[in-house]
């Protein structure tokens, strides 16, 4: 028998270009829209817009609220779309990375490198029959995805994309975020109960036990950056950090490093990510709370699960990794670039775009670690999961909290300790990174000899 033709079926260049154009345009367009709309919907800018473009007095004109509402609705739509697109692209990235880790080829059919697979999947799921099991509690079954979706999308309200790029800089921003993300578990519990399936019940029970338990260490761990910044506002926390790595909270206080680890692990558990994917552990309880869901409702759960990876990475980056702070740019530079009142100067927009870029980059790096973990680790058992939370993470988080209290007193007396800690811990981090890279290269060489093949991307 003749071997199958080895002539590689290359995708036409035009198709590759089209795919890349679609995806890049979507991402760039949405990020651009957020870049423009978040500052533009602030009251000062809106008033200026009404005064100068519409030639009305914003204080007396009856249409003012209407313009405000319209602008905010537009911003909401943009943020929602961004959430959907970013979670879809997270799925794509995850599938590509996992393929690379499992020595598979991975997505490569729909568009260049399978970049449009998420679109095909979404269309397929939307067109599926809307199934509700006969024995399900129908109103509850229907409403569960809304809770999940609300818990996901509402987080974008207080998520800072850049120096002035935040829909609403609430003074209790962090508190708001932890409260809102807890809505997701309500949806999951509803789904588990309303499906009226034994597997779904297991999933719902596990989700309730897991997510609610892990909110406690996470909640205590975020007290560390709050104590260091002295505020709950997301922008306030970022402003208290600097652009250079040794100015980030994670390195400035030894306890913050521990708090970051605790927060990261808890976020993995809250997002039902491996090694804590018990609520839907496929090999144990089939699909858990998702067992009876299909079609668009399933798509919502799926979207939220992967969108949450972005959210948790973004919150980690904000609290511990300096958020959007650009190295070497101070708060004064933004004020200088703004150039008085009126429409901001181009340089200011450039700075905002750069800060957004820094934020997105940090988030993607954290996200990558989450994806690596998922495809590396097995799943823990439910009692081990509870042990880890209550026996180790909660006491450790309290220790970090108390240590930070004392540390802040020390910093008040001897401010230089923060700089010393930042330098030493960042150095240690670089050393760890170097060792990690060396070990990785060693492992690759053990399998592939001296050839490190990266052509398969």
């Amino acid at each position, binding site marked *: 028998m003749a071997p199958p033709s080895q002539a590689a079926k290359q995708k036409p260049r035009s198709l590759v270009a089209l795919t890349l154009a679609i995806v890049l345009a979507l991402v760039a367009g949405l990020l651009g829209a957020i870049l423009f709309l978040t500052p533009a919907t602030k009251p000062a800018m809106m008033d200026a817009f009404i005064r100068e473009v519409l030639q009305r007095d914003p204080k007396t004109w009856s249409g003012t609220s209407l313009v405000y509402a319209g602008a905010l609705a537009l911003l909401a739509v943009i943020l929602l779309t961004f959430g959907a697109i970013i979670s879809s692209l997270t799925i794509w990235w995850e599938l590509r990375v996992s393929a690379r880790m499992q020595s598979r080829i991975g997505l490569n059919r729909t568009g260049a490198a399978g970049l449009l697979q998420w679109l095909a999947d979404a269309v397929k799921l939307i067109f599926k029959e809307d199934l509700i099991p006969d024995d399900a509690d129908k109103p509850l079954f229907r409403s569960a995805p809304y809770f999940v979706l609300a818990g996901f999308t509402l987080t974008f309200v207080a998520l800072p994309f850049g120096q002035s790029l935040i829909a609403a800089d609430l003074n209790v921003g962090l508190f708001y975020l932890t409260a809102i993300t807890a809505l997701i578990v309500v949806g999951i519990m509803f789904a588990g109960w309303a499906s009226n399936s034994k597997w779904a019940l297991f999933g719902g029970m596990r989700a309730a036990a897991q997510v609610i338990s892990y909110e406690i260490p996470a909640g205590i761990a975020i007290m560390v950056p709050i104590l260091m910044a002295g505020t709950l506002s997301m922008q306030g926390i970022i402003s208290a950090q600097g652009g250079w790595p040794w100015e980030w909270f994670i390195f400035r206080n030894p306890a913050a490093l521990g708090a970051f680890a605790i927060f990261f692990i808890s976020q993995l558990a809250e997002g039902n990510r491996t090694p804590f994917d018990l609520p839907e552990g496929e090999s144990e309880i*089939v699909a858990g709370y998702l067992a009876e869901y299909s079609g668009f409702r399933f798509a919502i759960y799926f979207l939220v699960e992967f969108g949450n990876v972005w959210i948790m990475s973004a919150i980690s980056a904000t609290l511990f990794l300096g958020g959007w702070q650009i190295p070497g740019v101070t708060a004064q530079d933004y004020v200088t670039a703004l150039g008085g009142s009126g429409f901001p100067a181009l340089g200011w927009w450039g700075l905002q775009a750069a800060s957004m870029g820094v934020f997105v980059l940090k988030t993607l790096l954290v996200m990558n670690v989450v994806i690596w973990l998922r495809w590396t680790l097995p799943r823990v058992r439910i009692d081990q999961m509870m042990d880890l939370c209550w026996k180790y993470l909660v006491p450790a988080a309290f220790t970090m909290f108390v240590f930070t209290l004392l540390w802040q007193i020390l910093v008040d007396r001897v401010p230089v300790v923060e700089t010393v800690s930042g330098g030493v811990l960042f150095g240690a981090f670089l050393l760890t990174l170097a060792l990690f890279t060396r070990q990785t290269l060693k492992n690759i060489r053990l399998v592939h000899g001296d050839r490190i093949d990266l052509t398969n991307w």
Partner: protein
Amino acid sequence: MDKLILRRLDQNAEEMILNFGPQHPSTHGVINFMVQTDGEVIRKAVPDVGYLHRGIEKIGEIVGYPGFMPFTDRIDYVAAMTANEGYAIACERLLKLEVPPRAQWLRAISGELTRISSHLVALGTMTMDIGATTPFGYGIRERETINDLIEELCGARLTFNYCRIGGVAFDMPEGWRDKVLKFLDHFDTFVPEFDRVISFNEIYVKRLANVAVITREDAIDFGLAGPNLRGSGVEWDIRRDLPYGAYPNFKFEVPVGKGFVGTVGDCFDRYYCRVLEMVESSKIVRQALNSLPEGEVMAKVPRKPKPEAGEATGRVESARGEIAYLVVSDGTDKAYRVRARTGSFMAMGVFEEGSPGLMIADLVALISSLDVVAPEIDR
């Protein structure tokens, strides 16, 4: 209709009765476990087998001696070569045939290759059941090469039908020996790689160590076979203790469970025994290829063999433990009775006694550590 199996559970208790299967992702085929659970903790799990019963043993009484060979593939399709071999050996003893040495060597080579590929599936699915998806792909990747090699040998990748009564169907093709040796060189680096990827992963060890311990005495009482028996520390291997075919000519170790990370006979011991067995199989194939005798691969066998009335057994060490065939002849060209005793079926006995107190996730670990394959249970 009240299922008989339900009578073995306490139906009046307040605990939930759960159908764990037959379409569950980790039951490794269509097996059902009726599980009585109190939340996550199992009170009792009773295996409900028979979903894949195809009457293969009855077919053996209808199709004649050589005609039954393809059906033996379907008894254990993950390691079909040894399932073939056991039946061939039983029939050869019945017919008092001498099998040419080259055929015996080829049986050993192909059998050990299949054992490796079967263990790769067992280990891969086990890691997947514990929740790690990546090692499964690594196992399947190596299995693919073995399948390619065996396809070159006999034309099939899954149901080989390679052994014949009195020998094997084909001699090995030209250049095959070098390909196998090249694969073995690669495979020797794979086992440490697999260990690095998953075996001693902290979470993985925590999930398996001291879980579902089957003691040495229990393992013997349940009639466990193969790696499941050896995982409990019983040194028993048909290849060494009741030698058949070419095996007396090879030197190999019989790995037994030593409590590598926990107690002797826990899930990890059964798992790690399989890892070590792959290394031993690779050694056997290397020795067999280096000492392969020349000559015929088939003895002279009539087209329709008619053995004298009597009975014979063929016991071989399969990947899932012992496969023993009993073939009874009444002097005609069709067997009076064919009976197969398989390792997976014996493993089903463990659950009712061993499951109380386990968690749902441990039951999954126990099922996959016993490496059960549904067609082998039911036949």
